[in-house]
């Protein structure tokens, strides 16, 4: 049987995720459950380190990369040891290249498949679907992301909440980082506004996870809907991607909307000629990582092909990036978006916002 996954979700470093996770590990150990730590990041925090006392720690393995030594969880050793419950800190961590899977969440899935229960920690800003939103709100582009479906697989997501004021107090007291680093953090990422916004995201996301788990049992539709809408057909969302860098934003946004609406999600690229295939391939592979079904078509008339594909796949909503208007001397030309709007007359078309800072 697959192991159970429990995620302690927070909104920033220092809210107490690891502490809460270890607290539970201790409670389990005292109840006689076989617990082992696969990876734990002490960050030099005394109270947290004290919480590991008495719990078996499986030694990490050392990997040499680019002349430096790195430590990662020893997944094979964990599999050999096979505890009932494994503690694995920092779910979104990226492993050093050349040593097994690229992402820690992949290691965690291996443990789960071996029937080991896993406790782990995650900050909300690592969720792939929130990446652009976090960037726009805080100015920070989070590099270590985790696909939403991996988090959705969790059996339980627990919010570790603390108020921004309390968190900033902790920073000031030097509990989270060293004093000088704390000062810098408070002026940049840990501003009251950023923390409040991230916290709201974490609250809403936890609520969403709770709702996802309730959905099978809960009778549709939600309150306020008329009977006619109950029979409403399932939505199918089609994302039109290109080689433009904004396609990543488009994919994240489209998938997020699809997830919330419980809609099917498809992505298509129509190649009208030799374009930037490398960038397109990157986006196609990114889409598949997000569990979006992908298609590449070749056609001379891009809008026509999109509309045709959408119609034959019973798409209800098309997501597109913004077309830039043609230069003034070609004012009579329509943009691709305009032509899709004209041709896919029976569908909704969403033009996704430009995200700038």
């Amino acid at each position, binding site marked *: 049987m697959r192991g159970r996954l*429990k995620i302690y979700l927070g909104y920033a470093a220092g809210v107490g995720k690891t502490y809460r996770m270890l607290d539970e590990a201790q409670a389990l150990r005292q109840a006689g459950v076989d617990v082992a730590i696969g990876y734990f990041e002490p960050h030099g925090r005394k109270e947290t380190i004290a919480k590991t006392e008495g719990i078996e720690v499986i030694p990490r393995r050392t990997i040499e990369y680019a002349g430096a030594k790195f430590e990662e969880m020893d997944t094979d050793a964990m599999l050999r040891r096979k505890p009932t419950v494994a503690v694995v800190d920092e779910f979104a961590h990226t492993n050093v290249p050349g040593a097994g899977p690229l992402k820690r969440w992949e290691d965690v899935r291996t443990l789960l498949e071996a029937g080991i229960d896993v406790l782990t920690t995650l900050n909300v800003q690592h969720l792939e679907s929130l990446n652009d*939103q976090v960037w*726009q*709100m*805080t*100015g920070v582009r989070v590099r270590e992301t985790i696909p939403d479906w991996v988090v959705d697989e969790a059996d*339980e997501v*627990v*919010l570790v*909440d603390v*108020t921004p*004021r*309390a968190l900033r107090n902790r920073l000031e007291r030097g509990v989270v980082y060293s004093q000088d680093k704390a000062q810098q953090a408070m002026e940049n990422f840990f501003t*009251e*506004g*950023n923390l*409040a*916004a*991230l*916290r*709201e*995201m974490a*609250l*809403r996301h*936890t*609520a969403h996870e*709770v*709702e996802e788990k*309730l959905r099978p*049992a809960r009778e549709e539709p*939600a*309150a*306020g*809907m*008329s009977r006619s*809408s109950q029979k*409403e057909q399932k939505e199918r969302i089609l994302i039109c991607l290109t080689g433009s860098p904004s396609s990543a934003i488009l994919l994240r*946004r489209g998938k997020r*909307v699809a997830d*919330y*609406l419980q809609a099917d999600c498809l992505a298509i690229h129509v190649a009208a000629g030799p374009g930037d295939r490398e960038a397109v391939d990157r986006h196609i592979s990114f889409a598949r990582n997000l569990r979006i079904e992908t298609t590449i078509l070749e056609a001379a008339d891009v809008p026509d092909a999109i509309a045709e594909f959408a119609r034959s796949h019973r798409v*209800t909503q098309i997501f597109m990036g*913004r077309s830039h208007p043609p230069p003034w001397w070609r*004012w*009579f030309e*329509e943009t691709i978006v*305009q032509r899709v*709007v*004209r041709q896919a*007359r*029976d*569908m*909704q*078309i*969403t*033009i*996704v*916002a430009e995200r*700038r*800072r």
Partner: protein
Amino acid sequence: MASRTDRRPNPEELLRRVQADERRERRGRLKVFLGYASRVGKSFRMFDEGRRRKERGQDVVVGAVQTEVTPDIEAVLKSIDIVPTVRERHAGKDYEVIDVAALFRRHPEVCLIDELAQDNPPGSRNLYRWQDVRNLLDRGISVITAVNLQHIREQQDQVERITGKRAAHSIPTDFLNEADEIEVVDAPPDALLGRTGREGAPDPQKLAELRELALLLAADVVDRQLQQYLESNQIAMGWGAQERILVCLTPRSDAEPMLRSGLRNTLRFHGALLAAYVEQTGLPAADRERLQSNLAMARELGAEVHCLKGSDFAETILAFAREQRITQIFLGHSLRQGWRLRRTPVERLIDAAEEFDVRLFPHGGRA
């Protein structure tokens, strides 16, 4: 922050802000621990915070404790002074009332109040305990308190729908919004089920529903605080954490599919649904009638309806959308051949609405 735009507040707004700041400075700080059910551990978290503050040198006093406490709370209470509640009897019923006078005399920095949703006996100066707490705050005493979702008045209908029960005492959401800080005490239902309950085991499904409600309530309170913070620091944050959908209505628009889809999206995202139209003069009677029925439908579906004034349709809608932190604009589009030389207002809006998701609805299409 997204952008620091100069919003140039007017003098009245500035004055209001200064007064609010002054009030805030004199006033004690209110911190609320919010739980979704009993036994999630919010009282313990509250007393534990009191203990830690005391260790850091603050003057902390307990103003109210539940009659039955768990052993872990009992241990914490040993280290903190208690100003006992006064027992008053009215019509054969006992009331535990905070000793406000004694607390004023003692005047601690921080006062811990458990069981916020208690009534005082009829005829008291304050009918509710939360009003006593407000008095303490006004006197500059900070209060840390704990409250359960089922005691938030505006949530009680929904809680009753889930549990079939309605708590006798309540506090208004407005009081929660006065809090400087609110902290959610979250625990998955299985943790509660594991603890041996005094009464029959609660239904995990119901607990999960309550948990979702509590998280969303806290998110709304946090959102409000965030807006206040951004406003008082004059920061514009373009994209909030909540989905906010604006349906643009025109006399000719096919409003129903847009509104229904808007409602569905709002419910799924736990977002906000707004509908707006820009006033026009000299509308033919038929258009006016159709607009009125569209607006009525919007209200009926629970949208917040706004009538905007402005000479330019696109600019008026965009200014409103920015002010309201809208994330998605829903628009109906007519089926003209492209949008060329003389562009319609809707077409100009589509072009200018770069920072929003714009969803176009074909007139006469499906929702």
